[in-house]
């Protein structure tokens, strides 16, 4: 029994170490953002808000915030709409070529970002659409739709399919059943998908870097700072990015979780 206990303790510590490894950079970047040293180490320097002040007064950062907000808000709406359509199609219909359809819906995240970036840059500049904010939006929708579809599809799987049929039997048209049965049921997942896709788009740097031209989003600005003179400003911007995307991902998950529990209880 002693061996059992020590293995159990070892495993718990091990899980703790893995989680520390995963969250260490997030915590570190938060701490460094208030640290006066240019090259932070242990022991830490003194507390400062200097890095926040410099980014606050940097017009380039504000431009990037604008680009990022426009992009991620638009991407979240379009990709969630397309993802919802695809999830409903998968939920309700069987048709010839459905596997190919699902592959098209789910494969984009498996393509390396650099290749997506190059392909997008080459194609969009061929048709004269590269270098704009909407170029980033176009590319991000491709990459975000699979996440939106997966989230909505998981929710639809919890729905009793006969609900929709019942609505038809009671005289509702297909459109009416959609708007008063399917959409209300899927609503938490729709909002969740919007948050998740907004977070993915808000964080994406590689493809945005290739196609954005002069319209730099926040991650692209970070990438360019990293390539030049590295300053702890990155930690300040990074903390802002972390907080934004973590909030979005947490909301996305909570929306799915609570509703799932209720569905289980019912």
């Amino acid at each position, binding site marked *: 029994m002693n061996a059992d206990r020590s293995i159990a303790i070892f495993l718990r510590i091990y899980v703790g170490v893995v*989680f520390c490894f995963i969250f*260490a*950079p997030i915590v570190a970047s938060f701490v460094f953002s208030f640290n006066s040293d240019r090259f932070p180490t242990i022991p830490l320097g003194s507390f400062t808000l200097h890095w926040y002040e410099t980014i606050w007064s940097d017009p380039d950062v504000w431009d990037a915030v604008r680009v990022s907000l426009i992009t991620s808000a638009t991407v979240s709406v379009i990709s969630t709409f397309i993802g919802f359509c695809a999830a*409903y199609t998968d939920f309700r219909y069987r048709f010839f070529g459905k596997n190919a359809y699902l592959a098209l819906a789910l494969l984009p995240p498996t393509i390396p970002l650099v290749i997506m970036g190059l392909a997008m840059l080459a194609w969009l500049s061929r048709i004269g659409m590269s270098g704009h904010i909407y170029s980033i939006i176009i590319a991000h929708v491709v990459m975000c739709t699979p996440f939106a579809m997966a989230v909505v599809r998981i929710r639809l799987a919890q729905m009793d399919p006969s609900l929709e049929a019942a609505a038809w039997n009671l005289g509702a048209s297909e459109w009416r059943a959609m708007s008063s049965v399917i959409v209300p049921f899927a609503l938490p997942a729709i909002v969740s998908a919007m948050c998740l896709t907004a977070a993915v788009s808000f964080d994406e740097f590689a493809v945005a870097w290739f196609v954005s031209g002069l319209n730099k989003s926040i991650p692209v600005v970070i*990438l360019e700072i990293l390539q030049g003179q590295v300053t702890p400003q990155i930690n300040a911007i990074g903390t802002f990015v972390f907080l934004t995307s973590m909030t979005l991902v*947490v909301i996305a998950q909570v929306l799915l979780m609570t509703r799932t529990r209720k569905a289980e209880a019912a």
Partner: protein
Amino acid sequence: MTNDTASVLPKPAATGVEREPLGLYALTWRVPLLIWQFLFFVVPLSFLVYLSFWLVKNYRMVPGFDVVNWVKMYSKGYFWDAYYMTFGMAALATVVITVLAFPCSYALSFKMSETARRWAVFFLIIPFFTSYLVRIYAWQVIIAENGVINGLLSYIGLGPFIMLNTKFGTLIGYMALCMPLVVILQTFSMANVDRNLIEAAHNLGCGRLRTVFTVIVPLAKVGLIIGAVFCFILSFGDFVSPYYLGGSKPPTLSILIIDTTKSGQQWPKSAVVAVTMIVTLLVVAFAAVATAYRKPK
């Protein structure tokens, strides 16, 4: 991959409306994805393949169909250095991360309550979607020669160790990238292993370690392999870790694409590298999925 993703999703509703004639209503839901992913996913990737056969004359790209880019790229020593480097590091990362993630996933699957497991996955999903770039910069500061780890080690009289701009640095970055996803996939597959079978193995006198390797690993094989495949895909395509933590010595294929693309009109050459990468990934993914679903002899 296709069959796998399809089988993960629940079966379509059995409402007797399957294979109904295609009306306006059905088309409304089916078409948006088809249009968008065709125009901005299928076409760009196909165009990339086509682009690899274009010519560059007087610093301008000219449509054509010539294998010259392929011949030139494949005859360069630095291309093959990058290829072996990328493949080797991704393979190493896959093995290391799969092995290091396993005890963690094992503990989450068998030693924790359902609630604790759910929360663990909740917290693993967050970093997966959270700025990888900033995390890598933080790692740069942590493992630098005058960084946090060496600062701590100096208290006990050790170091400094050179970790930044080495292969070890790249590996740390790949771990930061893949670890959350691999743990999640492994945990899902192991949590679904039938407890009765483990119980039976124990009752028959099978030791703990032997149970893990002869019962749990074979039963959770599909999930473990899918985790490894994602690890390979992500590491193989990543350019941030090998550049900012590995010092780009030698550059990986992704760095090669960026350098070639950003340096002007050499897109056809970048396309050659990109197509080579996609083919490699397809071969690896199909081989792995075939292994995952192979019936035991």
